[in-house]
């Protein structure tokens, strides 16, 4: 050990000067974090346009959409979306949003950017591996986007790619040839990128914390990224195996997921011995932790932001850490609740139902902690704070639906309906995206050195907040009424009385989506025209606010920070300040 300090100096890398090494194939965690962020921004934009198209098809099925006929002559002849193309668009919407937005931006985007600075490190533990993770993820995105341009279009099998449909080959329907192959390759690549990233996050958090940064002094964001990385490491490995088996089924003639006696369009398939349920087990063993991979970084950001803008410490820091850990552990025990409807022994159903309901306990504790953190605080209603409060609202609203779905007897009715669509969009989609917005408005000054426009931010928040309730709350009710999901249209008389609700949701989706252009405009305009950000515009305590905005290449300008304080030392005003930086050797703030 005695020779450590001499070897360490090799790590002080110097900033690259060429454009390619600086911005394209960069090993700087800050650049890679932004790359992930913009990859997610691109994906969320495409995913949002696709959601418009599917919503439009549901309520105005014969509408001619300008330009779409030229884009996909088979999928949308004359600009009218076919029923099959509806399913193709739905598949790509789901895959893009779940993998390339919800999994990418909160963890790989913000995590890459902020984790090393928040723990006082110069960079991630493996900078080159970090670069590789991004570029593998980029290739995965290319492979997925390519499905929109191949002859048959994207697969119709949904983001869950249930066999036999996904494994049976091109005879089974549009997009199930080349499109499904590209999908499987895309997800397999995404798994590799996520695994490498997760490994890097864990090693960085364990090994690279600066002096004084004990685990219990880390900002809760770092805890959230660490736990998410552990979930990624353990779950993406299974999805990777499943994708390899799916690729073999489709291209090497194996039958892992294909049973005997399968008829595809009247033709008997030469497969036997496999089971579609096997895919469901492997997929959801990944799929349920994936829900928390999407939302736990949001938990971290929200805990952080609520504390900063309430000018109060997080109520029960250790309890939050405990909740995150127990949620992470429980997420591996509940995958079967996605499969109640697939058929299982009632005893198995019970076994999966109980831990699912137990998850509501840490989830409730953490929600109450957020309310308790805000309670009695000197609130500062910045846009970031608004989105954090909005997060609590949509997370609790969406989470309540989960208690219905956790019970097999109710789930068997609700699972195939819009209730599930409303539930997971609210609790996983919208909540995680609110977490991203809160993170964006919070870290933007650090990332780009300029402030976002707060007025535009508030307009963006209020329309989005009301909008998402208008879109996703009615879904719960039409689901209870029995409206099935994934149908491309509703012609039965029994469903006609619900069509006005669908129209309302589509209009709400168009308006809410259009509002996002305010955000996109704010994002890019402020990069050049926003007011210059100071070092610590939010009067926050953590290490990223001790360095210039944006930080130098090695984060701390050759100096190494030493941490003396917990992450959330906010209190009464003393010497004109109501907070104590983590690097401040003086005592804790007074609290009334």
């Amino acid at each position, binding site marked *: *050990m005695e*020779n*450590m*300090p001499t*070897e*360490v*100096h*090799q*790590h002080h890398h110097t900033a690259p000067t060429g454009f390619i090494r600086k911005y394209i194939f960069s090993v700087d965690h800050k650049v890679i974090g932004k790359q992930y962020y913009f990859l997610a921004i691109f994906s969320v934009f495409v995913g949002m346009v696709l959601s418009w198209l599917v919503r439009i098809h549901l309520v105005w099925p014969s509408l001619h959409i300008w330009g779409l006929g030229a884009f996909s002559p088979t999928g949308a002849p004359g600009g009218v979306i076919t029923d099959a193309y509806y399913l193709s668009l739905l598949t790509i919407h789901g895959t893009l949003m779940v993998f390339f937005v919800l999994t990418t931006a909160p963890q790989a985007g913000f995590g890459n950017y902020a984790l090393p600075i928040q723990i006082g*490190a*110069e*960079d991630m*533990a*493996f900078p080159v*591996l970090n670069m590789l993770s991004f570029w593998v993820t980029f290739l995965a995105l290319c492979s997925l986007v390519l499905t929109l341009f191949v002859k048959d279009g994207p697969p119709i099998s949904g983001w869950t790619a249930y066999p036999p449909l996904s494994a049976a080959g091109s005879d089974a329907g549009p997009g199930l040839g080349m499109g499904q192959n590209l999908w499987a390759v895309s997800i397999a690549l995404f798994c590799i990128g996520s*695994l490498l990233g*997760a*490994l890097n996050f*864990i*090693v960085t958090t*364990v*090994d*690279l*914390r*600066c*002096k*004084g*940064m*004990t*685990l219990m*002094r880390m900002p809760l964001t770092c805890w959230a990224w660490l736990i998410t990385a552990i979930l990624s*490491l*353990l779950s*993406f*490995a*299974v999805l*990777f*195996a*499943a994708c*390899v*088996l799916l690729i*073999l089924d489709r291209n*090497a*003639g*194996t*039958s*892992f997921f294909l049973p005997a006696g399968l008829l595809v369009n009247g033709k008997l398939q*030469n*497969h*036997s*011995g*496999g*089971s579609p349920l*096997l895919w469901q*087990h*492997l997929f959801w*063993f990944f799929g349920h932790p994936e829900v928390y991979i999407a939302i736990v970084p949001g938990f971290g950001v929200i805990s952080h932001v609520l504390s900063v803008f309430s000018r109060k410490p997080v109520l029960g820091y250790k309890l939050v850490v405990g909740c995150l850990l127990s949620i992470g552990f429980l997420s591996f025990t509940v995958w079967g609740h996605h499969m109640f409807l697939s058929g299982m022994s009632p005893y198995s159903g019970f076994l999966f139902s109980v831990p699912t309901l137990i998850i509501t306990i840490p989830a409730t504790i953490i929600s109450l902690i957020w309310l308790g953190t805000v309670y009695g605080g000197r609130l500062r209603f910045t846009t970031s704070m608004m989105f954090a409060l909005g997060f609590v609202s949509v997370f609790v609203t969406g989470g309540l639906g989960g208690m219905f779905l956790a019970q097999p007897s109710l789930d068997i009715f609700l699972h195939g309906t819009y209730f599930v669509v409303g539930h997971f969009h609210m609790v996983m989609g919208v909540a995680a995206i609110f977490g991203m917005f809160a993170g964006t408005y919070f870290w933007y000054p650090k990332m780009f050195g300029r402030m976002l426009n707060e007025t535009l931010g508030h307009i963006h928040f209020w329309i989005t907040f009301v909008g998402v309730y208008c879109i996703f709350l009615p879904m719960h009710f039409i689901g209870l009424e029995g409206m099935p999901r994934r149908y491309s249209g509703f012609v039965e008389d029994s469903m006609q009385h619900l069509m006005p609700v669908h129209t309302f949701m589509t209009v709400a989706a168009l308006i809410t989506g259009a509002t996002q252009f305010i955000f996109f405009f704010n994002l890019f305009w402020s990069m050049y025209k926003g007011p210059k950000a100071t070092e610590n515009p939010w009067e926050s305590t953590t290490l990223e606010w001790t360095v210039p905005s944006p930080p130098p290449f090695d984060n701390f300008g050759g100096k*190494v920070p*030493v941490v*003396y304080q917990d992450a959330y030392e906010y209190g009464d005003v003393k010497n004109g300040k109501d907070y104590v930086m983590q690097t401040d050797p003086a005592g804790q703030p007074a609290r009334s």
Partner: protein
Amino acid sequence: MSHSSGPLSAATVHDGHDAPLWGGAALPYAVPSKKLGMWLFIVSDAITFSAVIFAYGYLRLASADWPRPFGTPSIVNATVMTFVLLSSSVAMVLGVRASALGKVSGAVGWLLATALGGVIFDILHIREWLGLIGEGVRPFQNPWGTPMFGAAFFTMTGLHMLHVTIGVIYLLIVAVGFGRRKFSAVDVEVSGLYWHFVDLVWMFIFPLVYLLSAKTA
């Protein structure tokens, strides 16, 4: 021991006085980043193998006529392969020991011996594959029973063979790098972790794939 400091353990740059304040980073968890990284890779890779082995068990239990084609020559061959792989792990242990003691030529020699074990394993394995293919085993059919036998066999052993092959290349790179003093003893130890893991996976595949499918008299 010098092996606890890789060039990446940057946190160790701090001066170290004021010990009670530390509480984090490399001092309490004195594991080099590369070694921890390899352990984490092994965890995730083990889960990938587990998923494939789970798939095999799931399908085998659901199948009434899973073939048991491996006669004495196959079992003997697989036992020899097991012996070769285990021996290579012993060589790896000796290589890691030599590298930690700074015996460069000894370490390189043992690493090359380990890689040779991997090559012999691969050759025996490919011979086995060709024999089975000659008997008519394909991923989608075989002469004896449920067609999934071939799919499971080739997928599991193929995934493992891929790991052995990558391991051989990895060991050669480490051997050359350590010989030229480019790599440290930690790098040798980390490559050893990988090699022992690949060996351990075979300790599951050998009984699950071969012994469970041995021809019953």
